[in-house]
């Protein structure tokens, strides 16, 4: 015959296992509270068991957690809580105060219905997992990926978006407008006679002009507007929620502002003007490439007409074949 056990196995495991375990009845009174919960919360089982969870922990997100637990009772089905949506249920310190870079424990939780004989949940067991290591690793990875994608989307000289990003953004703005309605405009602009600036004052001067013009334009943008360098001395503006006449006024202001003040490089004053072409999204466009084409047509009209001006696209411009 086996000797009687020295201790209750299951009870001891639940008490010492390195995950949080507690049980709630339908009134949200704590029925069980293991050591993980006690040690992290600083509240011993004796203090908590029999009490309402929300009275013992007034900082818990009560309405939301109540809803979650009640759905387990109602549907007789388990439920989960992920740190990715809610970093934690209980605000516990975590075990990596030195190396963690986080000021609290990230938690995953699992809610299990504890069913009585008749099959209906009478209590809910909540299991709390420390997900801090995973969360830290994932956050680092996410930051790294964001940095990579940020770098690959930026123009090295000016720091604004590059052509790759602009193409993607135009495509997604186009899809958005097509699906949800609304409009947006695109402006393409060129620095006039930029080659001459490089030839006359050197490439450093040319770079300074590009950076300075970028800075001036950026100052005038709304937060939702997008500026990018399409290549060489060619720039693109994407103006969400902006019809063509709005883009026209805005572009005209930019043009005048730039022409009004030369760029200073090593005490040399370099006059700069820009030529612009604009168009707006229309529901009958076959694809976003139509926008680039139309603003390009308009830009060439501006150039053909003597530069330092703004042209809005119209179908007649195509027929005139204004390209020089």
């Amino acid at each position: 015959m086996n000797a009687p056990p020295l201790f209750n196995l299951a009870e001891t495991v639940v008490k010492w296992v390195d995950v949080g375990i507690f049980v709630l009845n339908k009134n949200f009174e704590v029925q069980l509270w293991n050591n993980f919960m006690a040690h992290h919360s600083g509240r011993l089982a004796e203090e908590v068991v029999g009490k309402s969870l929300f009275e013992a922990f007034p900082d818990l997100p009560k309405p939301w957690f109540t809803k979650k637990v009640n759905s387990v009772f109602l549907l007789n089905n388990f439920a989960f809580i992920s740190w990715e949506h809610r970093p934690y249920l209980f605000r516990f310190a975590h075990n990596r105060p030195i190396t963690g870079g986080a000021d609290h424990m990230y938690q995953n939780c699992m809610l299990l219905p504890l069913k009585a004989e008749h099959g209906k949940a009478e209590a809910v067991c909540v299991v709390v997992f420390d997900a801090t290591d995973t969360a830290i690793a994932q956050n680092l990875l996410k930051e790294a990926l964001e940095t990579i994608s940020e770098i690959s989307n930026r123009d090295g000289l000016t720091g604004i978006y590059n052509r790759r990003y602009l193409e993607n953004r135009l495509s997604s703005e186009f899809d958005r407008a097509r699906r949800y309605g609304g409009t947006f405009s695109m402006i393409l602009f060129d620095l006039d006679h930029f080659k001459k600036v490089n030839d006359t004052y050197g490439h450093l001067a040319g770079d300074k002009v590009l950076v300075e013009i970028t800075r001036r334009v950026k100052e005038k943008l709304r937060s939702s507007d997008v500026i990018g360098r399409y290549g060489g001395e060619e720039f693109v503006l994407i103006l969400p929620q902006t019809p063509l006449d709005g883009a026209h006024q805005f572009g005209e202001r930019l043009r005048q502002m730039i022409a009004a003040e030369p760029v200073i490089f090593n005490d040399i004053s370099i006059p700069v003007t820009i030529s612009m072409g604009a168009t707006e999204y229309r529901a009958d466009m076959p694809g976003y490439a139509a926008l680039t084409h139309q603003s390009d047509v308009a830009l060439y009209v501006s150039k053909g007409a003597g530069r330092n001006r703004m042209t809005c696209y119209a179908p007649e411009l195509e027929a005139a074949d204004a390209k020089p």
Partner: protein
Amino acid sequence: MNPSMLTTDQRDALQELTNIAMGQAGASLATLLDEFVDLSVPRIRIVEVADLPAALAELVGKNNLVSAARQSFYGHLRGEAIVIFGEPGCQALADLMGFEGDLGEQGETELLLDVANVLCGACLGGMMEQIRNFTDTGGPAELSFSMPSLMARQVTAGQLIDSKRVQWSHALLLEVNFTIKNRDFIAHLTMLMPEEGIDKIRAIVDEFLEAF
């Protein structure tokens, strides 16, 4: 036996098994959302993994944008459940669940995962209950579930699974869908099981067939 084969009887029995299980999932969803949920007739296919993206696209509609959540189950049966939500329904869901105002992306994702979890749990739970009641194949018919996670938002169904990364050669695809009239809400519950799971299901179904 060729893994791609199910006899007519096996298919029929599995369909009924699924039908009963999804009835429970539908009832859970109805309770959760407090709306009447229309249930579809279950569809069952064994597909080669290479054809999986196309098969999903066919079930859900090729050009429709969807969001999807996945959850693993293991124990008596092993596989992955994928719940695919039609895009307009994602917006209706917050409304249906009684959340007011803008939930934000995190809140919306949490909601999708909750609903996916309820559907998977109820449907597979219902299946296990029948297996317990009518068969005695291979040990206690119980399942554990992993935490659900988001697969994708706003993609076409064909983009959900990269078949090159699936380790199986064949998969059993069970699909049921839940719709709510006037709400533009549709959720497809698909359960995917690898070859070994197909053998097990076949054994269960045979036992089921013998019982009647």
